[in-house]
């Protein structure tokens, strides 16, 4: 695969670094009880969010999952409203009503994060349909986890997309674990997404999800094909979740050797080494790291400074008239 231009390479590095530091901070805030409820981090999986988003146009559509902070940030939503949303503050992306698992930013075509497994896959087909109706060349990208390949909606969505040749790309982030259970233990085929592709007349596509440029090229090919009317693609990106499933889950169910092996394949230091070997000045990368740290600090302070939600927010936006009181 060809090397990407340096400007793109630095952008990929910046996105991965920002996402990593943002999520590390989200974890710290969770441990301080400032993020209530639960949160699911994509630490270790940043190359997929960065590589795929880099291959998309600004007006393309994105659907993601409850492990979706990374995709939303990669698509350009500023850190402060995302962090404030995690903190449940009124300056959050959705005034704190969506929370960590339900980020949505229509101004950037991010049509939601979905916490019911597979729900977003069938909905993504609708936004892909809409682009066809309007005659635009927009594509829809939807992320899913490996666990989602075993739910009915995955198969309904793939069949729909293939039947109508919709401009939609399904990106399966295979991090080897369905919540707490190894995906291989509960799946009939070794490659949970790729081995299902043929059922829908699609090519099996597997990519090293920790190689950000490989992800970028693979996504760009699928997106280009969809944009030109070539129909959907299903991409399985192999990666690893550095932490547990959610909250403070230490992920002790994973063999130590496996964790060690994958930590050594951490996509960010790996890409840093690639860039240095290509002659990128280390000071440039250090500068990106520093800016990312500062951006996360600033977002944290701005989010923490946001007001706590007013009680009225719990009762509004239920129906189109804005009201809530029909039944009370």
């Amino acid at each position, binding site marked *: 695969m060809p090397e990407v231009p340096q400007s793109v390479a630095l952008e990929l590095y910046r996105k991965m670094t920002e996402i990593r530091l943002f999520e590390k901070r989200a974890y710290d805030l969770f441990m301080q009880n400032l993020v209530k409820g639960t949160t699911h981090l994509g630490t270790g999986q940043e190359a997929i969010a960065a590589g795929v988003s880099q291959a998309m146009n600004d007006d393309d559509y994105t659907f993601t999952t409850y492990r979706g902070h990374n995709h939303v940030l990669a698509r350009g939503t500023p850190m402060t409203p995302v962090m404030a949303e995690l903190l449940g503050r009124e300056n959050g992306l*959705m*005034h704190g*009503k*969506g*929370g960590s698992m*339900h980020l*949505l930013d*229509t101004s950037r075509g991010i*049509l*939601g994060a*979905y916490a*019911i497994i597979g*729900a977003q*896959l*069938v*909905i*993504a*087909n*609708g*936004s*892909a*349909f*809409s*682009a066809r*109706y*309007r005659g635009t060349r927009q594509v*829809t990208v939807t992320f899913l986890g490996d666990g989602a390949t075993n739910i*009915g*909606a995955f198969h*309904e*969505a793939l*069949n*729909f997309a293939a*039947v109508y040749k919709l401009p939609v790309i399904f990106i399966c982030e295979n991090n080897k674990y369905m919540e707490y259970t190894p995906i291989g233990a509960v799946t009939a085929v070794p490659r949970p997404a790729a081995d299902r592709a043929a059922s829908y007349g699609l090519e099996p596509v597997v990519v090293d999800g920790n190689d950000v440029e490989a992800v970028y090229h693979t996504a760009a090919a699928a997106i280009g094909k969809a944009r030109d009317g070539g129909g959907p693609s299903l991409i399985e990106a192999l990666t690893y979740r550095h932490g547990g499933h959610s909250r403070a889950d230490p992920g002790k169910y994973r063999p130590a050797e496996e964790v060690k092996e994958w930590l050594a394949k951490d996509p960010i230091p790996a890409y840093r080494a690639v860039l240095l070997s290509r002659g990128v000045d280390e000071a440039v990368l250090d500068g990106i790291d520093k800016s990312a740290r500062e951006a996360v600090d600033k977002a944290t302070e701005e989010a923490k400074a946001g007001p706590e939600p007013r009680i009225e*927010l719990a009762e*509004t*936006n*239920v*129906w*189109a008239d*804005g009201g*809530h009181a*029909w*039944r009370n």
Partner: protein
Amino acid sequence: MSTLTLSRGLNEGLRKALEDDPKVLIMGEDVGKLGGVFRVTDGLQKDFGEHRVVDTPLAESGIVGTAIGLALRGYRPVCEIQFDGFVFPATDQIVSQLAKMRYRSRGQVSLPVVIRIPFGGGIGAVEHHSESPEVFFAHTAGLRVVACADAAEAFTMIQQAIASDDPVIFFEPKRRYWDKAEVDTAAGPDSAPPLEAARVVLPGDDVTLLTYGPLVRTCSEAALAARTEGRSIEVIDLRSLSPLDMDTITGSVSRTGRCVVAHEAPVYAGLGAEIAARITEQCFYHLEAPVLRVGGFATPYPPSRLEEHFLPDLDRVLDAVDRTFAY
């Protein structure tokens, strides 16, 4: 004025909506070439094309999910669920996504999706094909739930449902699809009462009989029969099951002092329970008798040879009316 079946009334309403708004789409199993198993969408694909009247795979979650995605981008999809019991595979999409996205996005998105469901028994079908699942959806905040009762109502209500910015679960009384009524197809939906309004079908003074969907006809027949015995029953078609038009309900019950609620769905935790509780809260000093309920039994829908036993009929409705005079 034209004389139309309820099925044709819906068809004409859908046709008008398709003509008036290019964002309206119809999707479902066999809705295109066949025109739907009850012919509600007959001829629409031929006239509006395969892109606006879409034959889908047999995949209810996929149908509703796709409709949500279209609505997220400004379309107004109308999904047909072929039979009542077939809606459950789409429950996740309806309850967990369609109903909640406006709320969790603090109003960033609006999902004007209509889900049409033929409901109720009486056609000699069996479970999955004869059920009344309205209360599952009425219990879910964020959904409007309505039921039409005749051709004229069907014609206007389907247009109002499509125009609503809320998601609407639209119940159609399948055993009444072939009933005929006069319909003014030239009238616009704006001249009709709003979607959330109940309607007095037959005025009366002695007892209020609240119902909806297929039992509007049954209850009207019961009221006419009772009239010959000198008893004056006010029959109200609720039309909207969520929200409830409590003003019309309490206005009537405050006057009559007696109330019976009738539906095909099982009585236990049915809509009648909610209505009875609200009437008790809001009209307590006007009541001469407890609010009584007539409905299906707490069983799965029975086999077709036994369904007459299950479905509330004129005798069961009038028996409940009589009992309200025993206090």
